[in-house]
């Protein structure tokens, strides 16, 4: 008679914050996200434009992409205990990848210094390509989480929200 397999050690409990708390925390978290992804880039673009340096990326693109990524990220945070977390992670990362691809297409920037014959071209495509690693890794993580939630719903909660 063979011995029974050892039980998989797993915490059975988790301390998932309430929806109201998550909304409050997510809303608070949204503020620095908007500052980093919208206000700061728009301020830099506006400052450069006021000095005669117009980058190829439009302010509207930065605003829309920044707001969408921030909102998706906040939703992901709020819905982290649910099975929507994985798909939202994938969506957030996908939008970020798309945003970076838009920047990549416009990543050779040529400008002329005002009141001079000086023309400068800067290529930052390699930086954008490196930056793509960040959302691509997050995208992969989101896919893995989606698969995990499909196979074992709730399995990750005790680890995401330890008691």
């Amino acid at each position, binding site marked *: 008679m063979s011995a029974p397999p050892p039980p998989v*050690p797993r915490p059975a409990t988790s301390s998932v914050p309430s929806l109201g708390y998550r909304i409050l925390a997510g809303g608070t978290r949204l503020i620095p996200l908007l500052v980093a992804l919208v206000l700061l880039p728009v301020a830099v673009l506006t400052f450069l434009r006021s000095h005669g340096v117009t980058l190829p990326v439009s302010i509207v693109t930065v605003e829309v992409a920044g707001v969408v990524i921030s909102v998706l990220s906040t939703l992901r945070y709020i819905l982290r205990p649910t099975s929507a977390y994985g798909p939202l992670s994938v969506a957030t990362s996908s939008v970020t990848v798309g945003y970076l691809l838009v920047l990549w297409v416009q990543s050779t920037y040529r400008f002329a210094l005002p009141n001079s014959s000086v023309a*400068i*071209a800067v290529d930052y495509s390699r930086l954008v390509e490196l930056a793509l690693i*960040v959302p691509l890794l*997050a995208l992969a*993580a*989101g896919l893995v989480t989606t698969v995990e939630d499909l196979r074992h719903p709730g399995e990750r909660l005790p680890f995401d929200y330890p008691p």
Partner: protein
Amino acid sequence: MASSASSPARRPPGLYRLSRLLRRLSAVVLLVLVVYLATVGYSAYELASSSHQSGGFSASFASNNTVAVTGSLSVTNPGFYPVSGFSIALRIQNSSGALLGQLWQGPETLAAQATTSFPIALYLPIAPNSAASSLLENDQVLTVGVWGNATYAYLFPVSIHFDQNKSWGAPFADLRVSLGTPTIVNGALVVPLTLSFSNDASFAELGILTTILESSAGETCGTVSFTLNVPSQTAYDQTQNVVLTSGCSVAGGSADSTFTGEGTTVALPPEPLP
């Protein structure tokens, strides 16, 4: 005995660990990129604010019928990142767009937190009928086109181009060779030859200018030499007698002048004689 329901997790499931690892890697890459961008921004600002000197440029006659424009470019890079593949190209054109000379320097690496100097030497051919021969006798405005290429902080290829107009003062500006009335001295035909020009160049002319008078058939009729010690921005006007070869007529001929200085010989464009 502790039950499995109450025992803490010692090892999360594989998928969870994989997802967590990917998220952490993503966060680490993001952090590295943020730090990199911050230091690049700071370094680029320091580089742009530092003093770059392109001083000591001077022009002079060089060997092989050339005018040498020499100097140095000193670039200070106080930032954290090197400037690699730094190369610079110069093209000098006259007012009509003719290319007089060009230079390609590099590629070099400007080390971080260091000053790097580049010697620059551009030789413009001034032999008769060459594109730059007009530099000898004509003051003019030259267009100096500058192209620079480099890769900053490993990831940012940067190119820069600008044009600058430079006034050129000719060393033999408005050169004129004029002949006076021939006379017979001791049975030989002697003609006074007046050489006049203005040294508008930035350098003094020290040497001997030899003028050969030729007939319209190319026969040498006479030779005269002038000793030059003409400071910059100074006019020159001297007359000497030339003994002409018997039977040789300079009418319709030309005066071919050659300047010989220290280590250099410059042939000036022929001056037609009336």
